[in-house]
């Protein structure tokens, strides 16, 4: 007789399989959910990286911070599934910020935004805190004010900090919390926004540095163009100029201007300030001097006119010191005037016998300044050195200046050197003196040497 299936056993078996199926189905669905959640997070992370790339482009392309902030709020809203994003800009009131860039608002709401002001606590602005507002967050008065005025119930806010202070506050959020597509904002979102804020702030700072460096490079090119491209060959003389800027762009300037076959104007100056403004002032001074040199070879006349032009064409407070003279290679007289500059030294027979102090005040400050003129004679072997204060005021690690005495000693000891060698020796001595200290000022000098009789002709560079 065949076995009759035991109904109870079959029922039990059926129930067993039912439970197993339910269990397996539950496991499968839970894993599906987890996979879905992870993929959603992964997608958001990918989009965050895309956003960083977008911001990088924006920072590179835009020279104005305001455009970067516009791109940032747009990118964050689009890529991070946010409904509303703002950058609040600092106001004149301490720690108070006002919406300056936003997205996600209809026109009627947007019109109200600019009037709202929020005062953030110092700890938040210092970067030690962030604001995370989700469905379970505490509602401080500031949070309530932000929620109401900005019409964002759930948000993250982080400061945009740079070396110069707080650039603004980045705030972004959602109108609703809906799992799994828009889950409640959490610490992961705070980390994302902190990273974004840091990226934006750093990018802006680097951009500013880059712009500054580019400005300096432009200024350096301008200044480079102002220095003599070549040194004129003067019968019986060696002529050399050297400059070592303290920054990319210095404030010192020298020039050689051939007036005619027997005369050459020589000048060395120092304009106030550094960087691009100094370079532009220098360009202005050079143009004035060059123009006046060709018009009037008189040193005093040239300086008087150049001063007037400089006064009229520059901002108040722009000024320069300048020594200007005309060397007559036939009579060997150097007629000069000194506009408030370090007095050049004349070395005659192993001694500094003259300081070229005659002249007037600095150029550019007063419209009608008058300049006096004087003359020195250069004998064979004499050396005339024009220099900027960067030479004598270079300090060592103990704060001692290189000084005029040391310069004078060097000149008396080495005056027999060729002009180029002497110039380099002075330069090296100054650099050695200031070793271990940052170069505080431009170092510039011009050496004019009348060749001894029967000396071989040398062209100095």
């Amino acid at each position, binding site marked *: 007789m065949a076995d009759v299936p035991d109904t109870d056993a079959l029922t039990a078996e059926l129930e067993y399989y039912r439970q197993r199926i339910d269990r397996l189905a*539950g496991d499968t669905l839970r894993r599906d959910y987890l996979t879905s959640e992870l993929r959603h997070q992964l997608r958001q992370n990918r989009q965050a990286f895309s956003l960083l790339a977008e911001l990088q482009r924006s920072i590179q392309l835009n020279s104005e911070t305001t455009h970067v902030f516009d791109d940032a709020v747009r990118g964050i809203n689009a890529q991070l599934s946010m409904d509303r994003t703002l950058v609040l800009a600092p106001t004149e009131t301490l720690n108070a910020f006002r919406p300056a860039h936003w997205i996600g608002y209809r026109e009627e709401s947007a019109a109200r935004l600019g009037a709202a002001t929020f005062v953030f606590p110092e700890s938040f602005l210092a970067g030690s805190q962030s604001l995370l507002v989700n469905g379970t967050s505490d509602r401080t008065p500031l949070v309530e004010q932000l929620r109401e005025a900005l019409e964002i119930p759930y948000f993250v806010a982080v400061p945009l900090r740079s070396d110069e202070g707080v650039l603004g506050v980045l705030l972004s959020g959602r109108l609703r919390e809906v*799992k799994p597509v828009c889950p409640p904002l959490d610490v992961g979102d705070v980390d994302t926004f902190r990273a974004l804020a840091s990226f934006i702030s750093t990018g802006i700072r680097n951009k500013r540095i880059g712009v500054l460096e580019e400005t300096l490079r432009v200024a350096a090119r301008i200044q480079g163009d102002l220095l003599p491209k070549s040194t004129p060959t003067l019968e019986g003389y060696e002529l050399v100029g050297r400059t070592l800027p303290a920054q990319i762009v210095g404030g010192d300037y020298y020039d050689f201007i051939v007036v005619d076959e027997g005369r050459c104007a020589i000048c060395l100056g120092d304009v106030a300030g550094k960087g691009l403004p100094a370079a532009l002032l220098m360009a202005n001074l050079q143009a004035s001097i060059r123009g006046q040199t060709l018009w009037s070879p008189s040193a005093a006349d040239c300086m008087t006119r150049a001063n007037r032009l400089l006064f009229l064409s520059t901002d108040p407070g722009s000024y320069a010191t300048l020594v200007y003279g005309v060397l007559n290679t036939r009579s060997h007289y150097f007629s000069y005037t000194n506009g408030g500059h370090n007095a050049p030294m004349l070395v005659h027979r192993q001694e500094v016998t003259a300081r070229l102090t005659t002249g007037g005040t600095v150029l550019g400050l007063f419209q009608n300044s008058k300049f006096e003129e004087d003359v020195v004679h250069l004998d064979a072997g004499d050396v005339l050195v024009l220099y900027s204060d960067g030479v004598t005021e270079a300090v060592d690690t103990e704060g001692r200046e290189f000084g005029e005495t040391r310069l004078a000693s060097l000149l008396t000891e080495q005056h027999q050197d060729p002009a180029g060698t002497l110039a380099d020796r002075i330069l090296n001595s100054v650099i050695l003196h200031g070793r271990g200290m940052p170069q505080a000022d431009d170092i510039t000098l011009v050496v004019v040497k009348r060749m001894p009789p029967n000396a071989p002709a040398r062209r100095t560079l």
Partner: protein
Amino acid sequence: MTAQAGAGYSENTDSFRAGLQAAQAAVAEAGAPPHLALAYCTSKHDPHRLHAGVRSALGPSARIVGGHSVGAITRDRLGYEGYQACVGALTLPGTAIHLFLERDIAGREFEVGRRLGGQLAGVSDDGWRSLLLTYDSLRENTPDRGPALNLATPLIAGMDETIGRWPSVAGVGVFGDLQFNPTYQFFDDQVMQQTASALLLCGDVRMDTIIMHGCEPAGRYHTITKAEGPVILEIDGRPALDIIAQLLGAEENQTVEDYPLFVTLGVNRGERFGPFREEDYANRLCMAVDKVRRGLVMFEDDLQAGSEVQLMRRSIDQKYVGTRCRELLRRLGGRRPFFALYIDCAGRAAAYCGSEREEAEEVQHAIGSVMPLLGMYSGVEIAQVGHQIQALDWTGVLCIFSEP
């Protein structure tokens, strides 16, 4: 003169420019002034400004229909959750374009359907008849009650009473996002809410459709024992939420708040214990939970007491999508396809369903090389299943427009 079409896409965050860019691209691809434009954008856009941008590119005479969507698709672009916008431009010589509008759908889906069907029944043009329905999926979303939907099932039932013979049909319940933010619809130069519209094309142009699901049963049959409208209150005699919680098992971090847009119930209209056939299943996605009554709020209200359902798991077969696209192309016979519209359930997007790739990429691959493609991510899809017009969840409805 033959029908021409083009599709344009934009992710510009400025709504006017987005509309303008997408429409300009669509018109440029069509190569002729359009008679009709289909325009869709996400809820991040200001719909009025976007519409103005579209209109400025199209000129004053083109008819416009469309509205919000969760995302946009064209033959080479695809995106959602952001500032996506897309426009399809169609030049349709020899085809009559009829647009009908009914307002105030909220709570009156059946009546609105009856009136819309009545208007459609009054059209006496000859030729092929193709119908695109558009309605506002979201009735309201209040902080205390949460989201409530306008239902397609009674809308279709209402139309069924008055329309007479159904034309070839596809439809979209518009959503602007999955956060249930307010939705808008475009109807010529009106930007509105709580409407249902019907675009009827009569003449040479024919619309063929095919549907693609993407779920398979993950468990045994259960019986709904109590339901009220779209809310399933009890399954197997117990509160629905309790049953789902039991089936999914205890998970520390999983709560009932995780069920919306995840829990999917399927009804098998085929052989009960036969091999799985996707086309036999009607799937319903959970939209929200009713914690007070321990119920599941579904996207439609057709799961009532006595319905046998299974928990479904998402399983989009990418190859199957391509196969179905090619199947529809074959169905056209010798007709010339010139435009494709893809109504794609937002839940099918990779970020929401957890798939590795976008299934819409398969549609782009299979269709985009043949003709201009316009697609949008929707809340609810409407298409013909068997002999019935049905509201669908979790479905992709591909429509191909062709002419002799």
